[in-house]
């Protein structure tokens, strides 16, 4: 083998090198801090699971069928709440998503405001949202719908804005060159590009919201959440097993239907 010399790696500035080292150091520090801060007594955990396994797991897998009717009704109500809430969010998130996307809203201040609104909505604990809506419309399923709608808007708006930021702007330019106005550009160049992603995120959020319904029980918004909390408080693993089964079945069905719809529309 003849000798060779690779050309020198492109010289990185000192600043960059320091930055890289600094970032690495910070990451290492964070992990050290984390693992020092978390103390888990593994021996105890293992002993505990040996004791408890037989108490919990077999019961989870032998659902309490007597509650079937009640669970079915509750899960149906949950589906309705989640559906209404996530569809509302899917719509509410659209203007916010556009506001937060820098290629749609040219003003940096406005996009920052948009992003901050979305973050603030996401930081608001579901439970407080739920209380607020109980106050607004009373303790009922509709309060749950509103709580879910607002709670989901934060996440959907963020995901939407990322989708919008990744569209092909050349198409927008082509429409501009046709003499299309802003709204026409929106409908002809932007929306066709984002629909599939918007749709799959909205459906994904719908699934998440079915799961998130546990929070609804806290405020009397109905649905399966109330049953989850009572089953937990009563340590009623059989009933918990049935509830789990119901949720799994429902989400699987939704998964199936939504996959078909998506195929049709995309």
């Amino acid at each position, binding site marked *: 083998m003849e000798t060779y010399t690779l050309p020198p790696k492109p010289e990185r500035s000192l600043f960059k090198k320091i930055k890289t080292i600094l970032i690495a150091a910070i990451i290492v520090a964070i*992990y050290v*801090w984390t693992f020092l801060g978390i103390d888990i007594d593994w021996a105890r955990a293992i002993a505990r699971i040996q004791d408890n396994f037989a108490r919990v797991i077999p019961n989870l897998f032998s659902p309490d069928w007597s509650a079937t009717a009640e669970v079915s009704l509750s899960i149906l109500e949950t589906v309705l709440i989640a559906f209404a809430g996530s569809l509302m969010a899917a719509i509410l998130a659209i203007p916010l998503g556009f506001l937060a996307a820098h290629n749609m809203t040219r003003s940096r201040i406005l996009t920052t405001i948009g992003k901050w609104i979305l973050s603030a909505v*996401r930081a608001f604990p579901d439970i*407080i949202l739920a209380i*607020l809506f109980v*106050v607004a419309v009373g303790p009922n399923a509709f309060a749950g719908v509103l709580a879910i709608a607002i709670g989901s808007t934060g996440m959907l708006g963020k995901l939407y804005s990322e989708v919008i930021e990744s569209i092909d702007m050349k198409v927008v330019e082509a429409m501009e060159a046709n003499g299309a106005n802003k709204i026409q550009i929106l409908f002809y160049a932007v929306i066709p590009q984002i629909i599939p992603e918007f749709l799959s995120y909205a459906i994904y959020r719908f699934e998440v919201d079915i799961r998130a319904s*546990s*929070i609804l029980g806290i405020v009397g918004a109905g649905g399966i959440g109330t049953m989850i909390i009572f089953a937990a408080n009563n340590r009623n693993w059989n009933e918990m097993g049935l*509830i789990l089964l119901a949720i799994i079945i429902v*989400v699987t069905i939704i998964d199936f239907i939504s996959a078909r719809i998506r195929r049709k529309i995309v």
Partner: protein
Amino acid sequence: MTNQSKDVVKGKTPSLYPVKTKAQVSIIFIVILGFYFFSMFWTQREMVGGFGDSLGNMFTVIGKFFPPNLSVIPAIWEPMAQTIQMAIVATTCAAILTVPLALMSAQNITTFKPLYYATRTLMNILRTIPDLVLAVIFVGLFGIGVLPGILALFIFSLGILAKLISETIESVDMNPLEAMRASGGNVLQVIFFGLVPQVLPQFTSFVLYVFEINIRASVVLGLVGAGGIGLVLDQQLGFYNYQNAMAIIILIFVVVIVIEYISNKLREALI
């Protein structure tokens, strides 16, 4: 196709979409809308008061959260730190374990169908279980403490991450992978050289997204003795110290913003 062309030939001014597509999409649309109105009707049937003073009522309560009592922030650092630590551990473990699971549940990588369907189903089930239920079960199994909290977050994150990342994997450019295979690389080499560089930016961004979800999910975990900021928040609400609760919310907001900032920076650096 042939039908469509016939349509076109017949009329000089064809409709904007083939009639069949139009009908299908319209039906889906109507069904969704119908279901929406039904849900709205159903969920509102228990509503008594109407919307009369809803906003006024809400603002009265919101008013009680202000001004936030920021003086408690030093005291809530510790549970916040605990929450962050739990989220870091859970997210990291999930991110690592997601790699094989996402590969196994990506159709373009796992050509062995039974394995693909098995992992996919497992992931769907994991994703389905409410975090509160997971927490309750793990507390039942391991007793109280951070471990059940971390496990609940971990399982939950795993389901989300595996779904999102397997979808990313399914959308990568398969050509480089074929090139690697054509030059004699084995499965692992093909994945590391052809796939990893393509999915890395998305992967990082999803991991941070899940990290943020985990921070917020810990509010629920607090309810079952898994510790963290959620417990404190619940307590402050319980004692009607809404202004303290607001300080906690602001702290969570700051953490969310910071994560988002890091996420953006990392994505910019990786793309």
